[in-house]
Structure formats: C-alpha cells, structure tokens
C-alpha cells in the first residue's frame, strides 16, 4: 500500500519537473537590468534599459572593470509596461529588473507626470521598492549611453556618486518608496535629486565643463556624473529646479543631513572651514495672532578643518565663538533662502510642515485643510542655528 502511494507521488513529482509548471529561467538567459531611463516623446514613452553584459578578459568568472560591461537597449510604447515587454525582442534574453538600481527620469517624462511611473513600478512584483530615483535635465538616454568607465557598471558608479554626495551634504538619496509615499501625502510634493553629465579631465589636465548634457558631446570620451541640484514635483508633475548651492539647506531641513564642510569668510577672522556633523533639528509650528508660523531650531557640532587668519590680526587662543557666529549666519542664510524659494515663490511644502501642523493644531487643520496652498503661502518661519565647535583638529587657532 505504501509502495503504491510512493509510486504515485514519485510519478507526480517527476511529471511536474518535466512539464515545467514553474518556468525555470537560467541565469544565462536573463538580462540583468541595472538602470532604466524614462523619456516621453510624441505621446510615447521611450525607455532606455542598461543591461549587464560582461566583456570578460580570459578567465571564466573574471569581470574586467576597465571595460564597459553594459549594453543599452531602447524601446518605446504607449505605456511603460508596453515598452518593457518589447525589450525582450531587442536581444535574446529575458528582461529581469529585480536587481534594478536606478530609475532616471528625463525632463520630458518628469513634466508628463509621475503617475505612470509610480503605478507601473508599484504594481509589478519584480521591481523592488528601494530603487534609487534621479532626474536629468534633458534626456535620460544620454546618461545611460554615456561611457563611464569606473567600477563594473555605470549604474553602480552613479549610485555610489549619489551616496557620496549624501555623505558630504551635496545631495541626498531618494528611493522609490520615498517618492511613492510623498506622492500620496498631504502636500503631494516630491523632491528628487538631479544629475548631469560632464566630460572627464583629459590628459592635459584641463577640465571642460558643460552645462547640460544635451549639447554637443564628443563621442568616445569618458564622462563623469555630477550633482546638479534638486527637482521639485507638485501633484506628480515637475514644478521647478533648485540650484546645487541650496541643496545643503534642503538636506538639513529634510533631516537627512550627515556632514558637510561650511566655509565662513569674514574680514575679522579670515577664512575658516568647519565640518558640521550631527545636526539635530526641531521644527515647531506655532500660532501667533491667528497666523501660523514655523520655528526651526538647528543644533550642530563642528570640527575645524582649517583656519587662515590674516597677518595683522590679534586673535585669542581656543576662542571659536566668532567663527561659530559666522557659520551660523551662513547656514541661516541658506535655510532662509530655501524656505523662501519653496514656500513663497513656488508654493510647495517639501519639508512636510503640514504633518506637524496637523499633529499639533488639529482643529486649525480641520478648518483649513481644503486650501493647503493658502496655508503654505501664509506660513511664516523663524530660523535659529546653533553651531558648537567641539573638535579643533591638531592645530589651534593662533597668531
């Protein structure tokens, strides 16, 4: 009896492996996608997909990092899903984007709207929620086709550059779930970093800079990526760009700040650069005379990097108060500038002040929640910075 049962079970098991009820796709038959660039042109979505395709040198598993181990495919379709399905036709492997690292939105698709992008990547099971998102002032195609010869893949290099930028206060990483979360938040505003393409230094040591990637570029030259500010979306559409100089303030206000070097220059104390780290920010909404305003208090610590004191100045030793004041002014200016740009000029709240108002003054919120734009434009702000230099480095300030 047992033998018969086992026989039947064994047959079923063997049958199942033969008929392939679960499709086994060999790794060699999968095209591993590393970055997806999305453009929108003439009512069609144009996708540029960067695939890992190794150009090994000799040994079986050796991946040559000096060569371009990637290939770019372009497809187009009315929706992103349709374009994706056509990508299998351009080369012999099945597209697999479970390992996708980056989604790069071209300016055209950013202006068209985030709705399609979010909907496709959210619904699909293969794509993971922690994909990095970036915006480019031009066509995403150019970035992906650029010859970036550092690391195994260009997409990997781009991701690392953005991460380094986050560590030094020049940008921050935005992941897909951040975008999807903020897209449905009360203020419905999303901020995504912007990158641009630059020519690498040639052998003579001169550096050629280009403002935008869509202008002439020399074929065959290797390129580098650099950060180019933040793009701000409202209601899913691209509203405006914010310059690279204001990125640090945005990072502080978004509480993603890690560390950054701030330079303060003044006649009295010369030039000094201090690395600021460990920032704690408190944002408190407050109603005064019926007007809503926000108190922003930032506390940071500082490490002195260098101090250059002018020749003819008497300066006390271990007295950094004046440097601290000067730094505080610098940072306060930056933050004020950003708040003005976002709140007053563009009427967007990318720092989620609305959630704090909702928590602290629910009745006020309930009365005014139909007209968020009004609240934002009338929002006052008071910024107070406190820098505390506690590490002086190995040299003390001395005449």
């Amino acid at each position, binding site marked *: 009896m047992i033998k018969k049962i086992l026989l039947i079970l064994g047959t079923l098991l063997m049958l199942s492996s033969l008929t392939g*009820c679960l499709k086994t796709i060999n790794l060699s038959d999968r095209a591993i996608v590393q970055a997806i660039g999305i453009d929108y042109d003439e009512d069609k979505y144009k996708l540029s997909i960067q695939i890992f395709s190794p150009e090994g040198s000799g040994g079986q598993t050796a991946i040559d990092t000096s060569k371009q181990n990637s290939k770019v495919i372009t497809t187009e379709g009315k929706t992103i899903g349709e374009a994706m399905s056509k990508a299998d036709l351009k080369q012999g492997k099945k597209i697999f984007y479970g390992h996708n690292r980056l989604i790069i939105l071209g300016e055209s698709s950013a202006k068209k709207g985030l709705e399609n992008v979010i909907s496709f990547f959210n619904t699909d099971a293969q794509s993971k*929620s922690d994909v990095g998102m970036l915006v480019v002032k031009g066509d995403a195609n150019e970035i992906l086709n650029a010859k970036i010869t550092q690391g195994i893949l260009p997409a990997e290099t781009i991701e690392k550059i953005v991460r380094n930028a986050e560590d030094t206060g020049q940008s921050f990483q935005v992941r897909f*779930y951040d975008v*999807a979360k903020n*897209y*449905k938040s009360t203020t419905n505003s999303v901020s995504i970093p912007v990158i641009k393409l630059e020519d690498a230094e040639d052998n003579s040591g001169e550096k050629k800079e280009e403002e935008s990637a869509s202008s002439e570029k020399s074929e065959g030259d290797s390129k580098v990526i650099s950060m180019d500010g933040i793009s701000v979306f409202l209601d899913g559409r691209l509203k405006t760009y914010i310059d690279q100089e204001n990125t640090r303030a945005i990072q502080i206000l978004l509480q993603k700040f890690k560390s950054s070097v701030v330079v303060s220059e003044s006649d009295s104390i010369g030039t000094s650069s201090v690395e600021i780290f460990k920032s704690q920010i408190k944002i408190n909404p407050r109603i005064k005379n019926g007007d809503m305003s926000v108190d922003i208090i930032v506390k940071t610590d500082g490490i002195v990097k260098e101090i250059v004191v002018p020749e003819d100045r008497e300066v006390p030793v271990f007295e950094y108060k004046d440097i601290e004041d000067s730094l505080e002014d610098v940072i306060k200016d930056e933050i004020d500038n950003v708040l003005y740009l976002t709140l007053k000029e563009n009427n967007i709240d990318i720092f989620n002040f609305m959630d704090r108002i909702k928590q602290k003054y629910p009745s006020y919120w309930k009365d005014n929640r139909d007209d968020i734009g009004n609240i934002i434009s009338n929002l006052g702000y008071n910024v107070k910075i406190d820098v505390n230099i506690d590490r002086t480095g190995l040299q003390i300030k001395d005449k």
Partner: protein
Amino acid sequence: MFAKISGAQLFTMLYISRVFSSLTYNIHTGSKLDGLAILIGSLISLFVQILIVIPIFKLYDRIKNGNIITAGYNCFGKNGIIIAWIYAIYAILVGINTIVQAMFFLDNAVYTNANSSILVLMFIGLVLYGAVSGVESISRVSAIFGVFFVVAFLFIFTGLLSSVDMYNLSPIFDSPIKQIGVSIFDNLGRNTELVAFILLYPYTKGNKKKTFMSYLILSTITIQIIVFLITTVLANYSGSLVFPFYTLTTISYTSIFQRLDSLHMALWIVLAFIKATMYVFIAYSCISISLPKVKKGYIFSVIFIAISISVYWIQSSLDAIRYLQGFINSGFIVLILVFILPFIIYIVYIFKKENSVDKKNIVNTGYSIDAI
C-alpha cells in the same frame, strides 16, 4: 485522554496563526481606517476579548474531561451534532481562507507567471500530512518555529527603526468614535484564534488562563508593532499596497543583511502551513467526536477533497476571495461562536445539572472522546 500538549506550545500555535493573518492582509482593506484608530481599537478589543471568554472558562471549569462539543451533546442530546458540525465547518473555512491567502500572495508577489495548481496541491498535501501526524507534532513544530519567527521579526523591526517618522501618526479627524468602534469590531473578527483556543482547550495541560492571557497580550503587542510600523514608515503609501508588510521588509536596512524580503517569504510559508494545519486538525477533531465510528483515514480523505475543490474554485475569482475573507473576518461570527453559543450551552448545562434531570446523561456522554 485528551491532554497532549503543553500550554507553551498552544501559546506559540495561537500566536503564530494570529500574527500570520495580520502579516498578509492590508490593514486598510474593508473599511478605510486611520492608523491611530486601528492602534487604539486593537488595544481596547484586548479587554473586550477577555470579557467574551468568561462564559467559556466557566463552562470548562465545570466539565472535567470534555469539550464544548461534548457539553453540547450533554445538553441537547443527539442535536449536539449540529454544534459539532458548525465548529468543524468554521474551522475548515478558516483553513481554506488561509490557503487561499497564501496562494494569493505567492501568485502575485513571487511566482507571477506560474501555473498555481501544482503549488496548491503540494501545499494542501503538506497540510494534511501535518494534520494526520497529530496535534503534538504541529505544536512542537510551531514551538521550534516560533523562536525563529520572533528573532526574524526583531531583525526586521530593528532595521526599520531608523525609517520611522512619528509625524505620520496623525490624529483622527473624521468621526473618531465610529472609527474606533469599527476597528474594535474588526479586530475581534480577525481573531479567529479564540475559536481555536476553545476547541484546543482540553488538549492542553497546564494553566490555561495563563496561556490565554499571555497569548492575548503578546499578540496584541505584535499587532500594535506591525500596525505602528506600517503607519509610520509607509504612511499613505500603504493604502496602495496589497502586502504592506512585504514592502516593509524591502525597506528595512541593517548594514549587512539587505534582502530581508527573502527572510519574510521563507518564514511565511511555514507560518501559513502551521495555521492551516492547526485548523484542519481542529475540524478533524470536531468531526471525529460527532462520528466516532468512522475511521481516521476516511475523515481525512473527505476533508482533503473538500478543501482541494473549494480552493480551486475560490482561487479563480477575485470576488470569491474577497467574500470569503469578509465572511471569515466578520466580528459577528466570532461573537456567536465564542460568546453566544457557549453562553447558551453554559446556561443549559447549569440548568440541567441543577435540576438533575438526567444524571446518567451528564456523567457519560456515550460518545468516544478518545477518537484521536
């Protein structure tokens, strides 16, 4: 005759099955409730649940060596078979619901292009193998597995702590009392483990009150943590996700272990298996008490066929999945099965015993309890 598993093992079984049902559904499906409402509601429903089980504890204090079903036989004579079959059908339905939910997750999140019939068949076969081995085996597996689950859960939790944003927990603006009331009732409905506890009560040795209280408290804490994480980390994004906890595991970052969603998927199959097996075993025990002469193999074959056909039929239509889920998780059914029915039986039991109408009937049910 009955006592086979220890209180701690029963606790792990109930805990695992309760947590499983909260890991798979979206907290916002059904009625759109705010996160804070669900948190407060589940806390209050803890006390409601304690109140509901008072009649059943009193009933079991009187019966020395029996089940609620044998008590039903005592009170109502031959008509007690209806009670047995009500519980059995409910247990089978919960088992079917679990299997359907498990397959739904697999089909949508993992194997999107696969023919799911063989997966379903394997799962049902495994559940029946577990149920045939008896309640001791299931309880031991769940005890071993419970430890892994708690460790994994703590892992995921610590990885998510850095992404928690307390400002997402906004106060409730629209009709807070109504939302909290709905949430209490909802939570009660999702707690099908109360029925499982009633029917597994006589199998347990040890202090059952302690087991029950620790189960309630720990499961409430776990549910609170899960809802808290979903609300604070994902905010309104979770409303658009079918499996928010699965997305949470992709976001969770510890420095070395990045792909925690694989951990989630692997654990999760075993969780589904333990829950489904427990309910199938409960169904089998109810049926075998009501039909003591029928052999074990026959009962299990019938259960197997019933489950397979139902799962195939329900899985093919999304409407059917939704209806089944709504039916199982409605608070009314739990209220009837856990509170009203035992209450009636308790009253009739006291009445009969006080009147000493049929002393013979009360002492010896005449039905073999040792069918297992």
